[in-house]
C-alpha cells in the first residue's frame, strides 16, 4: 500500500456505519463512496461542482460529493441514490424517470434522482420554473431535459393525489 494514505474515520451512509482506513486526506466523498465503500451510484463527470452527477444528500442538503472532503463528513448523515428506494425497490421518482423516458445513457440519472427527491421533499408542488431552477445544477447531455421535466411533474402530481386520498 502506498505511503500517501493514513486517514481513518467513519462515515454514516444510508443508515450504515462505514469505516474508512488508509485513505488519503484529499479524497473526496465521491471517491470514497465509489472506490472504498462499494457505492458507485454517484458519478463523477467534472470534479468541480458543475454537473451534479455526484449529488448526494448530507444532513438534508443536496450537495456535490466531489466537493466534500470525505474525512470532513464524519458525523454527518449521508444518503446516496442507493439508499432512496424502499428495501431495494424503486422509489416513485425512479419509477417516474423510467415511465417518462427520462433515462438515456443514464450517467446523469443518479444525480438527478437524488436532486429530485430533495426538491420534492422540500417543495412537493413545484412550478415548472421551480423544477428547472432546482435542477439547473444537474447537466444532462442526452435528453435535453424534456422527459426529465415530465418525470418530475408526474411524481409531483401522483404524490399530491396520494396525499389527498390519504386525507379523505
Amino acid at each position, binding site marked *: 500500500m502506498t505511503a500517501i494514505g493514513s486517514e481513518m474515520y467513519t462515515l454514516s451512509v444510508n443508515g450504515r456505519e462505514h469505516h474508512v482506513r488508509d485513505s488519503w486526506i484529499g479524497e473526496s466523498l465521491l471517491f470514497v463512496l465509489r472506490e472504498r465503500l462499494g457505492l458507485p451510484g454517484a458519478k463523477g463527470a467534472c470534479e468541480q461542482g458543475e454537473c451534479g452527477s455526484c449529488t448526494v444528500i448530507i444532513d438534508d442538503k443536496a450537495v456535490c460529493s466531489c466537493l466534500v472532503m470525505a474525512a470532513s463528513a464524519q458525523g454527518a448523515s449521508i444518503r446516496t441514490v442507493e439508499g432512496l428506494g424502499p428495501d431495494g425497490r424503486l422509489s416513485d421518482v425512479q419509477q417516474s424517470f423510467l415511465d417518462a423516458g427520462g433515462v438515456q445513457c443514464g450517467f446523469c440519472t443518479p444525480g438527478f434522482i437524488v436532486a429530485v427527491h430533495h426538491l420534492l421533499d422540500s417543495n412537493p408542488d413545484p412550478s415548472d420554473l421551480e423544477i*428547472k431552477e432546482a435542477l439547473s445544477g444537474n447537466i444532462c447531455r442526452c*435528453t435535453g431535459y424534456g422527459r426529465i421535466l415530465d418525470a418530475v411533474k408526474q411524481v409531483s402530481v401522483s404524490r399530491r393525489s396520494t396525499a389527498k386520498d390519504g386525507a379523505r
Partner: protein
Amino acid sequence: MNVSVVSPPRSGTLGTNASRPDGVAKVQGGFAFSSDMWAENMLWGATLRSPHPFARIVSIDVSAAWKINGVEVIVTADDVPGLNAYGLIVQDQPVFAKVGDLVRYSGEPIAAVAADHPETCKRALEAIKVEYEVFNPVVDPEECIAGRAPEIHPHGNVYRHQRIVTGDLSVEGDVVVEGDYEIGMQDQAFLGLEAALAIPDSGGDGVELYIATQWLHEDRKQIAACLGLPEEKVRLVLGGVGGAFGAREDISLQVHTCLLALRTGRPVRIAYGREESFYGHVHRHPARIWMRHHATRDGRIVKIESRMVFDGGAYCSTSPAVLINGITHTQGPYKCDNAVVDGYAVRTNNPPCGAMRGFGVVQACYAHESQMDKLAAACGIDPVEIRLLNAMETGDKLITGQVVNSVAPVEECIRATAAIPLPPDLESDPDFRDIPGGSGRTADRSHIRRGIGWGVSIKNLMYSEGFDDYSTARCRISNGVVSVKFATAEVGQGFVMLAQQIARTVLGVDEVLLDTIDTQVGSAGSTSASRQTWMSGGAVNAACVAVRDKVLAHVAQYHDMDVANLAVDGTDIVDTRGSFRVAVADVISHLDIDETAEYHHPPTEDLDENGQGNCHVAFAFVAHRAVVDVDPELGLVKVVQVATAQDVGRVLNPLSCVGQVEGGIAQGLGLAVMEEIVVTNGKVRNPSFTDYLLPTFLDAPDVEAVFIEEFEPKSPLGAKGVGEPPCISVTPAIANAIRNATGRELPRVPIRPYDVCL
C-alpha cells in the same frame, strides 16, 4: 402522425414505449458504466501529456517517477510492442510520442503509469521529466492549403481536397447572395468520461478490455495491431457507456490501458477526468465556409458556389469523411442543378477533430440555412416560402449526381412544423428565470425582443463512399428462452430496447434475453451516422426472422401443414387460412435454434474528381423553427421554443424518438449560443465544465415535435435513423431567429453576447 392502427400493438413490441432493459439499474445507481468497473488487485493508470502543441521530444526521464512508492510501471513509446500508431482511416496517430519525434497537439500522450492510487499516479506523472524543443504551432488552415506551413506530419498537411462540379457553371442568378461563415469547435461532452478496465490473461499473451466505445470491433483491430497480438487475443466487452455523440469512435485510452495491464500482469483501470477528456477525444471540426447562392428573381436556386475548409487538427481521425459529408450537403434539402464546391480538410497543431453528431453536415447546414434567409430577404420572400419553393423531392438529383431515392418529405416537414402553434407572447411581467440572463436578473420585459428563425436539413444515413458497414446479430432459442446477441454499442440511444422490441414482434414472445455486448459475435459497425436502427435493427430482424422461419417450419412439419400459410400473430402461431392456433411459448419450449445474420446496405461508390458518384446510402430530413427572446443590448438569448417535424420513416418507439429529438435540439442549441472549445495558438483555454458551457435545464427550450411517418422501403424496418437530424438545422434556426430579433448578420456560431451587442 398518419398511423393507422387496427388493434393496439402488444406491449413491448415495435411501435410501443417499451421499457429499457437497463433502466432499473440506471435509476438505482447499479448500472456498471466503464468507470465503475472494478477488479481484485486492480491498479490505476494515468497518462502524461504534452503541454505544447508543436515540439520535438528531446528526452524523457522517468527515473524519479519509478522511485515513488506505489508506482508499478511506467510505459513510453519504447514499450509499445506492435505498431506505435492508430487511426480510423489512416494510422497516423502515435500511441505515445517518441523521443526524437514530434508532439503535434497540446495533450498528446507521451507516457503512462500504473500505480496503487490515483493520487500516486498524479505524483508519478509530475515526476516524469520531458525535455522539449518547442516550435511555433501551425494553427491557420489556410497556411496549410497554401503550402506555406512547415510539414507537421510525414503524411502531409492536407487530409483531403475534393471538388464538386456539376451542371452549367455559366449560369448566373438574378439575385446573388453570399456570406463567409465560421463554426466553432464543439465538444461532444458526454457525461460519462472515458474509462476502461483491462484484465490481462494469466499467460500474459492476451487481454480482456471493458470499454465504453462506439465500435468494439474497430477498436479491437487497432488495439491488437498496437499490442502486436492477434485479434483473438484481444477481447472487448462493452462497459456501460455514458453518452458518445461521436467522441468514442477513435482510440483514446484503449491501448494505454491494455499495455499497462499486460506489463504489470494486473488489472488496470484508467478513468479520465473532465480536463483530460477534452484532450483525450476528437471534437467537432471548426470550419470556415464561403457560400454564394444564385437564384431567379422569384427565389428559385439556380447555382451554388462554395468553399469549405475543415480544420482537422493534428491527426486524421475521420477528417476526410467529415469533409465529404460537408461538401456533399452543400445544397441542403433543396433542388439545385448547378454547383461548384471546393473542400479542404487540413492538418494543423490544433486539437484533433473527428466525428460528432451531424458529422460535417452541421457545418454545411449552418451556412446554407444562413444563406436561405439572406436569399429570402434579397428576393422579398418569406423565409418559409423560399424553403418550400426550393424543397427537394424524391427523385431529385443531388449536386453529386446521385438521385435521392429515399422518401424525401421536405415540404411535409416544413408545413408540419409551420402548423405547430407559436408560443404565447412574453407576459408583461415575466419571471426573471424565463427571460435572457436568467438567474442573473439582467433584464426586464422592456429589454427583450422576440425573433423567429427557420432551419431545414438533409442528412445522409450510414457510412458512405463504398464502405460496407454491415452489422451482425445472432438469435437463439434454447430451452424455450429467446436470446439475442450483437456487438452494437449501446451508448444511451436505446438499441437494447429496440432489439427486444424486434424480437418480441417477430417471434411472438414477451421475454427476450440480451447477451453480453462484446466481440464474441461479428461486427455491428459503429453506433454513429444514425445507422444502428437501420443496420443493427436490420441484422437483429434478419436473425429473428431466420429463427422464426425455422420455428414455423417445425410447426408445419409437425402438424403436416403448408409453412407458407403459417404466421406469428401476437404470441401465437396461426394458420392464416384455417383455424389452427398454437402458442409460440409452447412450440419453442423444446426447440434449439441458433441463427446468425448479417445485414448489408446497398453498396455505394467513391466520388470522382468532379465529386460525382452515388456515395450515400439514404437520407433523412427535418425542419426546425426556433423562437427566441433576445436582450439585444447585452447580447443574451433565451430559446423559448423549438418546433420540429422530422422524417423518421416509422416510429418504432415514440418516447425514444422524442428523447433523441429533444436531446439533439439541446446540443444544437449549445452550438448556437454557448458551446465552444476556445483554442489560442494551439492551446485549449477552457477544458472544464466551468468554462465549456453546456445548456442547463433553464437554457433548454420547450420542444414541440411531430414525426412524419412515411415507411422507407429501403429500410429493413421502414424506419430511418433519428439521432443526428435533430441537432443539425436547429443551430441555424436559432441563429436566424436571433438575426430576426436583432437585425445583426451574425456570421459565426456560437453566437457570443458581444457578437450581438458590440
